[in-house]
């Protein structure tokens, strides 16, 4: 395509910069104002905190009045364990479905694909009843089980497409040497699919960390709240305390922001790679 003339280029950049300000501005405003005194929040919302207006009183209040550290650990536990299980169990199933020809192969693959389009949330009435029967209400286990079930279909699809691209020679050579199918999977296939894990992580980790619905109905109390639910409950209670509200939002944003800026290259690549398929 013909490269655009210079004025066109500048117009493109102006449009992109304006939209970037619109996208990032509100988040930046929250972060800036979380470190200012109440007076400065209202008198000069757009200004950066300086020596006179700087304060961390909001953060002190969040830590004094809520178990934010605990919520963070809860979120981290649920997300990491769920993701680990989704990748391991999903890779095993994807391997079985792509490598072996057996009766029922296509049907099982289709059956697993239902979950990609049908949101598991709609089964919440029964999920809650089941968790009550299993005595799992207000436990992180309940959340992990649901998130694994929710994440598996897409993980199997993505990992399956990836496993298909691995050359056949490796496993055939291993089979000639009499290596068992389990060891072929564990020592050859698992290490080779590590690049696909970034892609699976984008699609599964973020929705799990951010989810409000299942924490709200399955684990709303007993110190089992996740960050999303904890912040929601905290703000509901202290809605008029602007310092505390801004600080709690900042605490919820910060870990994602740091992680995202570190790994955004992998995330974006994973997203576009997934889309190409």
């Amino acid at each position: 395509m013909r490269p655009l003339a210079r004025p066109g280029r500048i117009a493109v950049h102006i449009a992109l910069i304006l939209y970037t300000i619109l996208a990032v501005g509100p988040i930046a405003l929250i972060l800036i104002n979380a470190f200012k005194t109440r007076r400065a929040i209202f008198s000069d919302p757009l200004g950066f905190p300086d020596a006179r207006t700087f304060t961390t009183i909001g953060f002190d209040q969040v830590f004094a009045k809520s178990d934010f550290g605990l919520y963070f650990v809860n979120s981290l536990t649920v997300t990491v364990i769920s993701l680990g299980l989704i990748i391991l169990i999903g890779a095993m199933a994807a391997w079985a479905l792509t490598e072996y020809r057996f009766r029922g192969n296509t049907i099982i693959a289709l059956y697993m694909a239902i979950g990609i389009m049908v949101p598991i949330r709609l089964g919440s009435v029964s999920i809650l009843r089941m968790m009550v029967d299993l005595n799992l209400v207000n436990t992180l286990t309940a959340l992990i089980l649901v998130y694994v079930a929710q994440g598996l279909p897409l993980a199997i699809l993505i990992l399956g497409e990836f496993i298909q691209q691995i050359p056949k020679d490796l496993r055939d050579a291993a089979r000639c040497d009499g290596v068992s199918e389990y060891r072929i999977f564990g020592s050859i296939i698992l290490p080779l699919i590590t690049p696909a894990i970034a892609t699976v992580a984008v699609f599964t980790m973020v929705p799990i960390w951010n989810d409000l619905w299942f924490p709200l109905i399955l684990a709303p109390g007993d110190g089992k709240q996740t960050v999303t639910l904890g912040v929601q409950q905290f703000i509901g209670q202290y809605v008029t305390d602007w310092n505390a509200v801004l600080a709690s939002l900042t605490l919820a944003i910060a870990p994602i922001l740091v992680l995202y800026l570190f790994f955004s290259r992998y995330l974006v690549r994973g997203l576009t790679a997934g889309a190409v398929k």
Partner: protein
Amino acid sequence: MSDITALGVQPAERVFARSRFPLHIAVFLAPALVIYTVFSIYPLVDTIRLSFYSGDETGARHFSGLSNFYTLLTDPAWSGHFWNALKNNLIFFSIHMVVQNGIGLGLAMLLSLPRLTGGSVYRTLLFLPTMLSVVIIGFIWQLMLNPLWGIAEKILDAVGLGSFFGPWLGQESTALITVSLISVWQFVGIPMMLIYAALLNIPDDLLDAATVDGAGPFSVFWFVRLPLILPTLGVVSILTFVANFNAFDLIYAVKGALAGPNFSTDILGTFFYRTFFGYQLQVGSPTMGATVATAMLIIILIGVLIYLFGVQRRLQRHTF
């Protein structure tokens, strides 16, 4: 096909093959199948089953056929809220289709320009809101639009639009549009990325050939690039549809379970939550909750089927 003929001719062999189902395949498949079946498929099926039952005061349940659906669609105590939620959900979805996917397409076009400096910086920053929790985004915008803080008014004033400002989230006439636009603002990154990836996949030769033949940038877009990314636009549409008809978190965070003012931001997700858990004086009902969930399931399935058979089949996939 050959399987079926084999089945008819040698039934004995079928039994033999089934009894020797390789153990290692079963071991690889079992964990995924069990967890997925127990915690995803079974609850969905059980929810559909529950929607055919009704409970009385003692908690006993009895089969009642389609009466729950009849209540939901015709009983004045229910149907008004249901149709209102469905209507609002359709508006919510239309705004996403037009604004979110329109802006997403526009940004993707700009980002896919050849030799764009800073492209990856723009992509990273534009996708940032999508990574954050819907709840957090909801609170951020609640603060931004709060007349008490007045920051939105101040910014609008600066560009000469100050007179437009109002308590958008609090007015019945504007609350739904405002909530929809907050959601659009957050998720515009998804269509942007998917369309961007599709645009990158179009080989340059094709665009060069069109340009050499005298097509201007507008015709190149309209007659070459747009037809080639139609399958991606289809995927974006169905993803938007399923996500919108399943949405809940944003409305709950910004407006609460009552989806005020006067239910003007009530969508199917919040209606489902209220039906299931109850609110104020109304007691929650698992069976009516299951009925609403089943109705949502049917709506989503209709959307998916229209996509699969009406849209996807007609679109030719281009591979280069």
